[in-house]
C-alpha cells in the first residue's frame, strides 16, 4: 500500500519514545503541503498504535501501518487538504 504513494518525507523515530514520537510526527506533517505523504519509522508498539490514532483524529489520512521487522513499524500518512 505504501509503495503506491510517493513518500515526500521520511522520519526515523525508532529510538524515540512518547511524547517525542507524536510531537515530531505532527510537526513534520505540518511542514508538508496538503496531500503530500509522510513516512514515520517507529520502534515500539505503543507509539505504533498511538501515533496513527492521534494523527487520524487530527484529520490526516493514515494510509498504512506496516511492520517490516518485529520491532519496527512504518506509518504512512497523507497530510489533510486544509
Amino acid at each position: 500500500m505504501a509503495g503506491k504513494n510517493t513518500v515526500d518525507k521520511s522520519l526515523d523515530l525508532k529510538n524515540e519514545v512518547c511524547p517525542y514520537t507524536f510531537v515530531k510526527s505532527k510537526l513534520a506533517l505540518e511542514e508538508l503541503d496538503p496531500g503530500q505523504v509522510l513516512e514515520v519509522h517507529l520502534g515500539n508498539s505503543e507509539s505504533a498504535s498511538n501515533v496513527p490514532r492521534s494523527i487520524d483524529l487530527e484529520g490526516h489520512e493514515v494510509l498504512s501501518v506496516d511492520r517490516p521487522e518485529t520491532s519496527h513499524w512504518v506509518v504512512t500518512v497523507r497530510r489533510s487538504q486544509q
Partner: protein
Amino acid sequence: MFVIGGIALGLLLGFSLQRGGYCMNTAFRSFFYEKDRSLVRAWVLVLLINVIGVQLLTELGVLYPLVAPFFWPAMIAGGFIFGVGMVLAGGCASGTYYRCGRGMLGSMGALLGFVLGTALVDGGALTWLQQSMRQPTLDVRGQEATLFNVLGIETAGLRWVLLGVLAAAAMVWLLRAPKQRFLIGWGWQRTGLVVGVLALAAWVLSAMAGRDFGLSFTQPTVALTRYVLAGDDSGISVASYMVIGVPAGALLAAKATGEAVLRIPDPRTLLRQSGGGVTMGVGASLAGGCNIGHSITGISTLSIGAIVATIFIMLGSWTMTWLIVRSESRNAQRAQKQKQKQQQQQSRAKEAFV
C-alpha cells in the same frame, strides 16, 4: 505463600501493562495534547472497578484501607515534579518498570534514576525536604481527608448514592466511546478491566499479608533499594514482590509478540530519560506515591490527598509537554529557515554562474 502470590500478581500485571500498552504518562498527556482518549478510558475503568470494589470490601470487613495524611505541600510539589519527570523519563513509574522488562535501555536508565531519586528524598541527603514539606497536614474535623468526610457523608446509604452517581457518569462516558482504531495489543476495555481486577486483587492480597494498601511502586522501590544496598529488609512487603514480577511479566508478553529487543536510544535521550527518572523519584517520594500509589490505589479510597496529587501530576506533565512542543517546533522552524536560505544561496550562485 505471599512471596509467590506477590510475584505471580506482578507477572500478570507486567504482562497486561505490556499487552495493553498501558502508559499513564500518555493517558494524562492526551487530555490536553491529543484527541485520542483510549488510555484515559482504560484508567477510568480501572478506577471504576477499584473505587466500587474497595468500598464494597471495606463494608464487608475484608479491607481496612489506610488513607495517608493530607500533607498538602509535599503532595502538590511532589505531584508536579513527578509529572514533569515522567514526561522526560518517557514513561510513568509503572510504564518504566514494564518497558525495562522488554529491553528498552532508556527505561533502564530511568529506573536507575527513579531508584536514586526516591532514595535521595526517602532516607537520603534530602530527607529533611520530605520531612519539612510533610509537616503541614489538613484533616476534616479531626477525621482523615476523604471525599466522604469532606462532604459530611456518614451513612452507608449516602455513600452508595454518591458512588452510584459517580459510577453512572463514568459508565455513560465509557459507553459513548468511539471505536478504537489502529490497535496493537489489547483495547482499552480489556486493558482497563484486567488492570482494574489485578489492582483490586493487590488490595486483597496485601490485606491478607497485613498491609492496608493496594498496588504501589514508590514505597516498594525504596524498600527493595534499602534491602539490596544496605541489607535492611524492614520495608519489604508483598508489594515489593509484585514490583519484581512486573518487568518479568512484560518480558514474557513481549517475547510472544517479538517485541523483546534490546534497544539503546541516542546518548542525549538516554541522559534525558535517566534525569527524568531521578526527577520522577524525587517527586514520588515527596508526594508519597506515583501514578499508581496515588492515581489508582489512593483514589480508590477517595483520598483527597491522592486526588490533589493526581491533579498536580497532570499539571506537571502538561507543563513539560508544552515546553517540549515549544522547543521542538522552534527547532523545526529554524531548520526550515536554514534550508530556505541554502536554497536561495544555491540559486543565486547558479544565476551568477550563468
